[in-house]
């Protein structure tokens, strides 16, 4: 039996395969009439990184902890916003520019909670979920360095 309304469905997947955004949204809202807003964020592999042209990106993760860490932040998002469902899919493996990397869907009765929760989840995915990117470009291969602006983006959600 699936439980309707209230906390809603939480889906967390780490996979090599691509995802279909329309199908994931349909899965989140199917046979429900309490959801008034779904926000979708997709992270895509881009070719332009500062001045270098990236030819491919490899994503490594810490199996087990990655799922646990995402779940902790989904639980926090559910405690902070009235959400009807959350779907997070993070891909791992080697990607070319233009390919999907991550999907965050947040469903709520109203748009504000869905927008804010999606942004909160993405900010924390970038700074605390154990994933690492390695870039390939004409000048060589190297691990992507963490950015201070991502830490700042996550820090603004900290409750004092």
């Amino acid at each position, binding site marked *: 039996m699936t439980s309707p309304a209230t906390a809603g469905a939480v889906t967390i997947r780490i996979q090599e395969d691509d995802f279909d955004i329309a199908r994931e949204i349909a899965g989140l809202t199917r046979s429900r009439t309490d959801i008034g807003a779904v926000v979708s964020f997709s*992270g895509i592999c881009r070719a332009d990184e500062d001045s270098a042209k990236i030819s491919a990106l490899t*994503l*490594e*993760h*810490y199996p*087990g*902890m990655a799922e*646990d*860490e995402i779940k902790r932040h989904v639980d926090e998002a559910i405690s902070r916003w009235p959400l009807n469902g959350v779907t997070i899919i*993070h891909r791992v493996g080697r990607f070319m520019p233009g390919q999907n*990397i*991550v999907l965050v869907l947040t469903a709520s009765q109203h748009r504000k909670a869905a927008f804010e929760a999606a942004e909160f989840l*993405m900010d924390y*995915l*970038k*700074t*605390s*979920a*154990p*994933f*690492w*990117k*390695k870039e390939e470009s004409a000048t060589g291969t190297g*691990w*992507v*360095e*963490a950015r201070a602006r991502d830490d700042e983006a996550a820090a603004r959600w900290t409750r004092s």
Partner: protein
Amino acid sequence: MKLKYFAWVRERIGMAEETIEPPGSVRTVEELIAWLSGRSEAYAYAFEKPKVIRAAIDHTHVKSDAAIAGAREIAFFPPMTGG
């Protein structure tokens, strides 16, 4: 306890995981990093900037002063760059 390494920490050490029994005098994550660094040049290179290294005990992020007693799995890795 099992140790796991990721990204450039894994590459520098030259392996993804191992099982170790550190001496009883090694009580914290920080002390474990120092002890590992003394094992070989590869470890010393991986941990050359200990402040940059992030650690997790049993799938939870911890600070460098965290106690390692009772840990089943400790992971070391660079700052995360997913999403």
